[in-house]
């Protein structure tokens, strides 16, 4: 891959993460446990999809040839998607959704912080500077829910512990450096994920402790998302998300 292709691939990775978790959260709209939280999660979803749009726009400019903020999310298939396995996991229940969001928020927060501090790409820095404000709020919101439900009732605690354990397997991938990430870090516009691992572990440990939840023993790290080898869930997410563009190609909506 040349520099341009690496940058493109790296941006797609960032964009796909926010797109897919935003899409997952959007599934909740109208079905939340209480009206106020329905609205809260939708706000988060809107932030994340908004971030994905900025990134797709940037990626489309790099790619050229008529690529748009829509052609990238709507016309790529599973193998070309670069998101983490974590974000494509199903909503399952409010506990899973919160734990998934929390694990992602910690990662998302530090990643964007690092991009602002270290990236040599002005555009990426700009997008990250906007994202960090949103990510800060998301992290506050999901941390509080982790604590509230972990330290709530026996039922909520056990649901949260289960979710933590099952989703833990997907957190190893966060820090496994892909070839693109390595090249992006080397070129100076990207961040090596290993550089945020200790921050992530520290924050997660802190919140889980306050939530009276137990950190799982090091489990097996499922991986592949960053290079296009996804779980079966992503195919269904895309089938739904891309339905209109696939059924009625090349039209304006």
């Amino acid at each position: 891959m040349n520099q341009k292709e690496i940058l493109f691939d790296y941006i797609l990775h960032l964009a796909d993460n926010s797109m897919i978790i935003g899409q997952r959260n959007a599934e909740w709209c109208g079905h939340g446990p209480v009206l106020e939280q329905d609205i809260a999660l939708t706000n988060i979803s809107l932030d994340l999809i908004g971030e994905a749009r900025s990134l797709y726009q940037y990626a489309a400019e790099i790619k050229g040839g008529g690529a748009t903020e829509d052609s990238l999310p709507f016309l790529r298939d599973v193998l070309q998607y670069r998101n983490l396995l974590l974000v494509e996991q199903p909503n399952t229940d409010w506990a899973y959704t919160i734990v998934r969001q929390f694990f992602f928020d910690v990662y998302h927060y530090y990643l964007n912080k690092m991009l602002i501090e270290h990236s040599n790409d002005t555009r990426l820095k700009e997008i990250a500077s906007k994202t960090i404000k949103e990510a800060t709020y998301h992290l506050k919101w999901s941390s509080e829910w982790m604590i509230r439900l972990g330290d709530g009732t026996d039922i909520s605690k056990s649901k949260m512990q289960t979710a933590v354990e099952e989703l833990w397997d997907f957190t190893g991938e966060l820090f496994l450096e892909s070839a693109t990430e390595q090249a992006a870090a080397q070129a100076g516009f990207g961040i090596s994920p290993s550089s945020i691992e200790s921050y992530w572990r520290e924050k997660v440990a802190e919140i889980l402790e306050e939530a009276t939840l137990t950190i799982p023993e090091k489990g097996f790290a499922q991986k592949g998302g960053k290079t296009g080898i996804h779980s079966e869930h992503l195919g269904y997410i895309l089938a739904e998300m891309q339905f209109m563009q696939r059924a009625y190609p090349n039209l304006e909506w």
Partner: protein
Amino acid sequence: MTNKEWPLWEVFIRAKQGLNHKHVGSLHAADYQMAIENARDVYTRRLEGVSIWVVESKYIHANEPSEQDALFDPASDKIYRHPTFYVLPEELNHM
């Protein structure tokens, strides 16, 4: 366990620096932290505010509507509290 309803909170928002907090509505939340965040999500989605106060509704006390006349009418004839009560010469223009 019987499900207790989350308490009701009244929300006050400062639209911009320099203005009073103004009552905008209410919402349900389990605690004040959640109430502030909910207020942010519910009542400031269109840049309506820069600062939020929440008060649990049960702590708001109000006068009895039946006392309205006794409380507020006596102010109506104290016109000497208003600047226009005082007649000054035209030349003085702005005072």
